[in-house]
């Protein structure tokens, strides 16, 4: 890490952040800690308060209550110091669409203090790094979605920031571009940048984030690693495909007997889904099916998807969800 601040291990330490728009508490008491050099995923549906939280942490909005330290600097009192070590890529293109990619990068480079020549060189380096050399002189509004996102992120790392905020970095991108953005984020983190990203995509949080915070109605309703969140929802599952409807029915009976739980059956695709607790149980179930001479065409083991995690968490009544949120807060404090 580029700063001599070894004793400060957190990139973000937020305590009870609140933002009100009118009498609506858009962000309603969010506390979180993000260790340096990690990716923190902020997961939630539209309107949950993700962007507002990011805007507060990136010095764009003043919190109505609460406080935060960003890269060891107080958000309120050391705003300019915070600005020197962060960078923000907003939800909507945060570059000037009328200008070319190259001009945008030069513009930002000049504004962070590069010399005229330095800014030009930096722009060339970044265009190369982000595969945008061919589009350097084209106006950004003529870029494809993926290219736009890349120039956006390139503009955010004109000076390598200690902390990069990415607000829904892959919303609306095709899978290929999305993978490119993910790769970029991984390289960034390998080089010591801390990334705080918001997403509506559970897969994205699962793929990238070291820790995930689930936000709903301005509150953190759960927090942890992707594994921990999945564990919160409970069991994993075993999926078995069979060859014939006969086998399907037999296998269902066997699995239900073994797990003592309801087994989901899909007669069209000849698929069974059974809840299981560990790999051992799955292995014995499979061997049992084989000894019974049932023809298994395919099987897979899966942990619950984050989708399920999210539904389980937000599907609860508000009262339950709130106590969950407090639990998450307690965990952080401890």
């Amino acid at each position: 890490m580029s700063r001599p601040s070894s004793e400060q291990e957190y990139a973000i330490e937020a305590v009870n952040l609140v933002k009100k728009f009118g009498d609506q508490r858009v962000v309603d008491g969010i506390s979180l800690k993000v260790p340096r050099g990690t990716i923190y995923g902020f997961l939630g549906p539209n309107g949950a308060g993700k962007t507002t939280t990011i805007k507060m942490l990136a010095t764009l909005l003043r919190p109505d209550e609460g406080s935060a330290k960003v890269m060891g600097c107080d958000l309120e009192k050391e705003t300019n110091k915070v600005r020197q070590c962060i960078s923000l890529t907003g939800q909507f293109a945060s570059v000037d669409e009328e200008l070319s990619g190259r001009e945008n990068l030069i513009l930002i480079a000049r504004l962070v203090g590069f010399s005229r020549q330095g800014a030009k060189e930096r722009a060339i380096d970044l265009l190369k790094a982000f595969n945008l050399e061919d589009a350097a002189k084209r106006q950004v509004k003529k870029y494809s979605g993926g290219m736009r996102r890349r120039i956006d992120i390139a503009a955010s790392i004109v000076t390598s920031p200690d902390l990069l905020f990415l607000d829904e970095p892959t919303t609306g991108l095709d899978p290929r571009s999305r993978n490119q953005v993910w790769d970029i984020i991984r390289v960034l983190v390998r080089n010591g940048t801390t990334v705080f990203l918001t997403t509506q995509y559970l897969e994205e949080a699962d793929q990238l984030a070291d820790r995930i915070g689930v936000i709903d109605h301005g509150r953190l309703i759960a927090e942890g690693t992707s594994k921990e969140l999945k564990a919160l929802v409970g069991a994993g599952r075993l999926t078995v495909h069979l060859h014939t409807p006969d086998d399907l029915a037999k296998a269902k009976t066997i699995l239900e007997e073994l797990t003592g739980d309801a087994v989901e059956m899909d007669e069209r695709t000849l698929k069974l889904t059974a809840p299981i607790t560990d790999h051992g149980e799955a292995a014995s179930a499979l061997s049992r099916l084989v000894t019974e001479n049932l023809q298994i065409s395919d099987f897979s083991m899966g942990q619950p998807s984050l989708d399920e995690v999210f539904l389980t968490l937000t599907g609860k009544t508000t009262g339950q969800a709130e106590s969950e949120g407090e639990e998450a807060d307690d965990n952080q404090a401890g």
Partner: protein
Amino acid sequence: MIIKQDDNTDLQKALTLSLRPSRPSALSASLTFGWRALLKIKYVPEQLFDVTAFPVIFLLMFTYLFGGAISGSTGEYLDFVLPGILVMTVAMITMYTGIDLNKDIQKGIFDRFRTLPFWRPASLVGALLVDALRYLLASTIMIGLGYLLGFRPENGFGGLVFGVLLLLLFAFSLSWIWTFLGLIVRTEKALMGISMMVLFPLTFLSSVFVDTSTMPNWLQKFVDINPITLVVDAVRGFIHGTVTSGQLYTVLIVSAALIIVFAPLTMYFYNNKK
């Protein structure tokens, strides 16, 4: 992996740059924003219509429409009305500064600018510097055309230059009203509506077109304190050699007041925009 290995190396290289320059000076940041405004003109030269076509249309229209009726001849009226229309044209196009800012806000770039550590007013000062160039272009075109039509400033070239400089100063000051409104009004259309509502009565109920002494008393009272009248009288005075120091100071005070009130307001809303 979709990005090829050597691309990742480029990325790695681009990222290992630890250079973190110190924040740019206020002047350098402002000039950078001026450069941005010039680039926009480069891509959309049509946006210069307002400073090229407006002056021509206004000058021709009002000279030939009112000339005979008001002064008995178009030639005489031209000498009187040109400084007035010059002020009117420039005052009208100041509102585009606010509209551009409003457009920026609706896009993400505004947020990015606000997370960078440069001197905050630079983004507006830089844009206003380039606007001054646009006003200068408008003035040059109008005065050039005026010459062709027979306009003769009685105070020569020097008076003309001072008149235009005073106008540029006033336009710069007036722009802060629009940047302020650009920050608090939701859409550019609304902003356009508001600025027209302010500018139309101000420019017409002034000494732009006619001598105020022909107006009814109650109207004259308003017209005489209208800032546009004050500016028109001073610019006209410079051009025809009748300017008084009182006229000059009044315009300087009005301009300073506009900046003192609206620049801080603009910066407050700039910093605290949701």
